[in-house]
């Protein structure tokens, strides 16, 4: 979450596109990683 605040402030300050996009991708990867970490149970569903 701190990273998201840093990205927001960087966008506000007008940081370079490369740094904003790179940090945003890192934030997305961390989010997906946290999702994978917290998803531990198998859903017993069938459609």
């Amino acid at each position: 979450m701190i990273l998201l605040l840093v990205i927001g402030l960087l966008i506000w300050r007008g940081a370079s596109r490369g740094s904003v996009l790179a940090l945003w991708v890192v934030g997305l990867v961390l989010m997906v990683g946290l999702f994978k970490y917290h998803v531990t149970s198998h859903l017993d569903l069938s459609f």
Partner: protein
Amino acid sequence: MAEIVVNETVVGEDASSARSGVWGTLAFWGLHGWVVAYCFVMLSAFFIQFVEGEFPCPLCMLQRYGMILSTLGALYVIMQARRGTLTTAGYAQGLGMGLIASIAGSSVSVRQILLHIKPGDSGYGAPVLGLHLYTWAFITFVIVMLYVGLMLMLMPRGIPVAPPVGAAARGLSTAIIWVFLGVIAANVIAIIFLEGFAGVLPDDPEGYNLIDQLTGR
């Protein structure tokens, strides 16, 4: 070489004509609507958390991440439009950020919906207007996806145009941006209190870990 210059001129004229008119203004304020809507959603989540005493689970927090990551795409475009440096590529990058984050966030929402989809399961937390918060989150992510699709269809006519420096509307834009940054900061503080020194949220949080750890409870 001359051909390249001609092509650049054509692109430049296309872009400058796209920056005039009502579409650019609508697109600029549409992005602010995106920011305001997610600020409202996250402030409502804070109301439920602090006033009604319902603590967010890890999947709830991940959906907030998705909302913030998505809204950073809108902020990215707004700030470039305000500086007058927004290009078609920059606009597409911002919309892409919003779209990808919405897909990621909606995946978390779908997971949580499926966790509680079986008959007899009362779901996590109290419903709001008949739907649980994760279902509302999924709806908001779908709305963002539709919005991004619509804005891409309007390209290049709908490239956002900011009001001139000194205009009252620009002050409103600044206020909305600061509210959004404040909402992110509030989430940072909330997650620190919720996680404590553990670094991750428990599956079913029942209090603020940091306070419990500091007071030895």
